């Protein structure tokens, strides 16, 4: 395939009249500057905007005053959906010290095909579109975001940023490099492939429930 590489890059360089393979100054500048395009504006607060957009994509949320309320909020969701007290949670620091009731079965691991409910912690959220961003890593297995029927996601309110570009800035600042997968999740899974009728729960979660942690 070395030949194909040389042939393709050669044709491109010829068509573009580029003499050398060295990066043009404009290219280096562009990659370093990371300039933003036009930024959509809105009048509401970030929190209001995020919650309004979240509702628009058929996701639900609960508000938590502190981490002590996590068990109660998850319990309320399990009861409302009539689910057994089994959950698979991400091995995340915000969840490690939660005192789960003794009669719950809780496992902190990646998700498997039979898991009904997954609980993870978002890296951040994007107010513009009501999206959650999750980064694959030891504290956030990607399978949790996609395999269980019900996906619960803990989001500290301080982690809501205005736009996707702000999420990238946060990622560069805190992580330095891209994880294997950066998932921007906006609502539950959906399809319109049968007669353009929107149906939730195509292959991914049927429901998305955000636990918004104040402070």
């Amino acid at each position, binding site marked *: 395939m070395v030949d194909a590489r040389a042939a393709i890059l050669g*044709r491109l360089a010829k068509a573009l009249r580029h003499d050398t393979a060295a990066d043009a100054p404009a290219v280096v500048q562009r990659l370093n500057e990371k300039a933003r395009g036009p930024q959509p504006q809105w009048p509401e607060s970030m929190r209001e905007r995020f919650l309004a*957009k979240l509702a628009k994509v058929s996701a639900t949320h609960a508000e938590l005053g502190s981490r002590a309320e996590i068990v109660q909020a998850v319990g309320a969701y399990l009861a409302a959906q009539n689910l057994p007290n089994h959950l698979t949670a991400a091995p995340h620091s915000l969840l490690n010290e939660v005192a789960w009731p003794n009669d719950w079965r809780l496992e902190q691991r990646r998700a498997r095909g039979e898991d009904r409910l997954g609980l993870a912690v978002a890296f951040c959220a994007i107010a513009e579109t009501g999206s959650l961003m999750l980064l694959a890593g*030891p504290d956030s297995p*990607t399978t949790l975001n996609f395999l269980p029927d019900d996906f619960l996601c803990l989001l500290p309110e301080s982690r809501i940023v205005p736009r996707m570009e702000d999420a990238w800035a946060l990622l560069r600042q805190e992580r330095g490099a*891209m994880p294997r997968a*950066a*998932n921007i999740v906006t609502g539950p899974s959906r399809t*319109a*492939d049968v007669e353009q009728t929107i149906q939730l729960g195509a*292959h991914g979660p049927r429901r998305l429930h955000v636990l918004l942690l104040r402070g």
Partner: protein
Amino acid sequence: MKPSSHAFAENARRALHDATLQQALAKAGVGFVDKRRGAIAGLPEFEALREAGRAIKDHSLANLDHYLARFEQQVTAGGGQVHWAETPAQACAAVLDICQQAGARMIAKGKSMVGEEIAVNDALEAAGYEVVETDLGEYIIQIAHEPPSHIIAPAVHKTRGQIAALFEALHHRPGLTRPLETVPQIVDEARQILRDKFLAADVGITGANFLIAETGSTVIVTNEGNGDLSATLPRVHIVLASIEKAVPTLEDASVLLRLLARSATGQEITSYTTFFTGPRRADDLDGPEEFHVVLVDNGRSQMLGGAYHEMLRCIRCGACLNHCPVYGAVGGHAYGWVYPGPMGAVLTPLMVGLKEGRPLPNASTLCGRCEAVCPMSIPLPKMLREHRRREFVQGLTPPRGRWALAAWAYGARRPWLYRKLGRWMVAMLKLMSGGRGRFRSLPFAGAWTAARDLPAPQGGTFMDQWQRRKHHG
């Protein structure tokens, strides 16, 4: 797939007489158009983003060699591998090679238009692999043994009843009597069947909406979550991408993402937008062990810098299909290859040859609606005209068209003759219409008068009317 674009006229005639297809098309067209309009009305910055998006693509294409090299460097640094393919055959060979080395048996596939272009499923199945399309629309057409009829809604031509019948025939086993009538029942059936496939697959193949040079990331935009499951559960993840997908930075992709979802489905953003960068890290709990990107050229490097350069800005949103009166009337299959509608009428002749694809640029009124709604402002009608010009120059235009054009050109170069003939035609037609002002039928114009009347000329030729007005001030 073997193209049948040369038979467009026949394909279109069949489509127009297919009542079920017409029913499906009528349902689809309005929905897409309304949803897009609503989404754009809700974003005052849309036009500014459209201009910015176009500039990003223009810059990316003007430096495509640099950005592809940087992308490759970053993929490799992250532990992935880039494979370059000039032709569909080379691309399929690269995929087969990866699958063979991985000892794969089953392959889960996310939606990929370049996958259709290189016919990777045929290549994999011929080599004995089981390939399962996991996007619901793609799965439906895979089990129906049909090509996609729309670039973002591949099964848009199928009605609910047809889909239920397909599932019934394939999934129905003794003792299994799940009802299959409503949309939720059909979607649930596919979810259950495909869930096992995801979990059993050895290799996952997805497409890419964008390639990020800065980070070596590939981006997919989906609603179902099947692309993410295909990329996460199997041991090996292969990304199929055409070379024009490269953009410089994450910020540049963010601009294009705002345009893509709104133009395609009228969503502000799709349910899942994912950036993949390399294989699983040492401390990751899941994800594939191998990450491969197959970069496909297939004629694109020859489009660069030429008459069809601007087509490389296309982000495959499908807006031009949804707004095209011809696509809306005949559907995607009539176009006879992978890409239908206006973008397909430009791309198909470039990829399968003008001889095979020549009816497509001619099957257009050049009404310009495609260009007007294109988020990348691609001058599609201009490129359709360029195809027609080349067709004539290369002598591919059929004799009847050539003679008609030659006769018209003969007259156009002799104004006195043209006017004389014009006056004679007007007088004749007026006489023949017998004062009714219109024709119910007319020799040589049966195709026109079959569905509507032809108005009879009123008040002389254009030149005569022009002269009269000049004199009367």
